[in-house]
């Protein structure tokens, strides 16, 4: 049973990263390979604000989130918008280039060691049926779910959120109806960066942050988004949680060295049976 608790903890982080992927995918049609780097930067930012500048958490966290919005928007303007004659594959590659730059900056600015911050809430081990969960893990789960819910409200209720969905349905039509598609794109990156930074903030006290972290985090988030079905909001959340639980499950029943192989095997199996992921919708192809 322990694997379910740990699976949900790591899974809720994958879910946040997967949401970041989905938001960008829905507005631009590309996969942002730098999404994992946003998580890394989130951890680094909160470390800097808390441990170096000694700010209290209630000031540091909003500052980090603000910075995230700024970084995301800047990211879009510098890397995505400037590409000449863009196509899908070029945009994906530019995000790879960007992820290398961000990783390099992370190393130069914050060094090579893993960094850690003190827990935001008192450490407590919660005894649950056939397993345990720490108070910090619980915080991760709660924050992730709250973030996901408020984001879904934003998309459903606010007019800006509706503009996002219009962009997803049909970019050209949205443009004609007065939606500023370019602005929406920039905002999509800002929100994706925000999600990454939230993930970075909540995980750093538990599992530290290192400048190389982004690669694996990004990969897992991508896997989660695909598993759930690209572009599907709750699919991303479900994909993240499932991936986390799979990993925990395989680590606890198989020789643990093979756990990643099995997690990916499951993803392959899902793709073969459902080529658009578990909750992915088939978008009508234009012929």
């Amino acid at each position, binding site marked *: 049973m*322990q*694997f379910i*608790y*740990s*699976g949900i*903890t*790591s899974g809720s*982080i994958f879910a946040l990263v997967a949401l970041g992927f989905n938001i960008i995918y829905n507005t631009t049609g590309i996969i942002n390979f730098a999404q994992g780097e946003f998580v890394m930067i989130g951890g680094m930012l909160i470390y800097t604000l808390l441990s170096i500048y000694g700010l209290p958490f209630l000031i540091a966290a909003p500052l980090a989130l603000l910075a995230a919005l700024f970084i995301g928007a800047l990211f879009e303007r510098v890397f995505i918008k400037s590409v000449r004659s863009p196509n899908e594959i070029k945009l994906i590659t530019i995000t790879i280039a960007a992820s290398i730059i961000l990783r390099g900056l992370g*190393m130069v600015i914050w*060094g*090579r*060691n*893993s960094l*850690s911050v003190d827990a935001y809430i008192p*450490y407590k*081990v919660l005894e649950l049926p056939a*397993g*345990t969960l*720490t108070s910090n893990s619980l915080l991760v789960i709660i924050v992730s779910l709250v973030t996901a819910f408020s984001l879904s409200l934003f998309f459903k209720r606010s007019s800006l959120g509706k503009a996002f969905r219009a962009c997803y349905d049909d970019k050209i039509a949205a443009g004609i109806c007065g939606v500023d598609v370019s602005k929406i794109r920039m905002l999509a990156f800002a929100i994706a960066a925000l999600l990454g930074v939230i993930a970075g903030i909540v*995980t750093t006290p*538990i*599992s*530290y942050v*290192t400048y*190389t*972290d982004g*690669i*694996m985090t990004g990969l897992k988030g991508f896997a989660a988004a695909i598993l759930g079905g690209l572009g599907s909001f709750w699919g991303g959340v479900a994909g993240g949680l499932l991936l986390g639980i799979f*990993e*925990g*499950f395989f*680590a*606890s029943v198989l*020789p*643990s*060295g093979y*756990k*990643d192989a099995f997690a990916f095997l499951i993803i392959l199996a899902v793709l073969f049976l459902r080529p658009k992921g578990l909750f992915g919708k088939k978008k009508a192809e234009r012929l």
Partner: protein
Amino acid sequence: MKKLLGVVFMIILAVPLYAEVRLGALFAVTGPASFLGLPEKQTLEMLVEEVNKTGGIAGEKVKLFLYDTKGLDTEARKKFIRLVKKDKVDAVIGPTRSGSTLAIKELAEKYKTPLFSCAASKRIVQPLNKYVFKSPQSDTHAVGKIYNFLHKKGKSKVAIITAQNGFGDSGRTELLELADEYGMEIVADEKFRDTDKDMTSQLTKISETNPDAIICWGVGPAPALVAKNTRQLGLDSMLIMSHGVASKKFIELAGNAAEGIILPAGRLLVAEQLEKDNKFREVLINYKNAYEKRYDSSVSTFGGHAYDAFMMFKYGIEKGGKKPAAMISAVENMGAFIGTAGKFNITASDHNGLDESAFVMLKIHNGDWELIN
């Protein structure tokens, strides 16, 4: 005019006369192993600077050529050839990782260039390659030290959890191989990846086997997570780590969970706790103080490996000169010398020269290292 030409001529002639010792170095300064490679690099740069300040080795200045292997075999291979063929170095210190060293082991012989590796695997010196030395202790010795310790405590049920990288793999091999010899029973054999963020699944499996001790073999932040998760699950088995975590950084990361962890390590970490007349004390404290003053960060045993490797190299040049064969035979006949990792006794058949005594058992207590006698 003639005079001027003469001077110019003299200068041109003088350049080759003004000889220098060319030292190559390969460290994993970036990439996943960079927290090992960086202190090695810093240590070496510091030592070269010091030596040059005091007139160099055997009257010649040392010129350092240092490249980043990024922790990759192919990179190590390319950069080694670069050092040998382009920079024409007399010897090479490094690489950081065992895999990278093994990738260039044969090349060292081919290009007749002495290599002083900073990686631990015993496969680096076994089978013996005339040109390859290594300064860190072998995993065999660390494992022997741990098993001895457990044996003395009367414990025999051991669970192991090892990293899926060269370091963890090498440790795991030794742990499994030596278990019988020391009467240990391996009740669980789990693994984790350096990038894993949660080890509770593996540890739950371990806890079901109810071991006397859990031995974790890894480097970097992952072992700190193992420590944290062990505490979270409330496992009361003794937690033993490898020398791979012998840096202050580990205690910082693991926080309270580090309390009570036992590990074998070189004496560097407990230099101050050694008795005044201990033969290691002076060497260790000098290195430690110099490093910490210069880089404003706490010393780690990894940097010490570069220190020891440099000492071998320095001795080789002083006594043997730049000719590879002579340098090697000088190092082979170096006799006992005190390094940061322990007392070396390099011979023609043993290019590491350390034994189990290089390790002491430490316990983490109140956020600091404590010597176990």
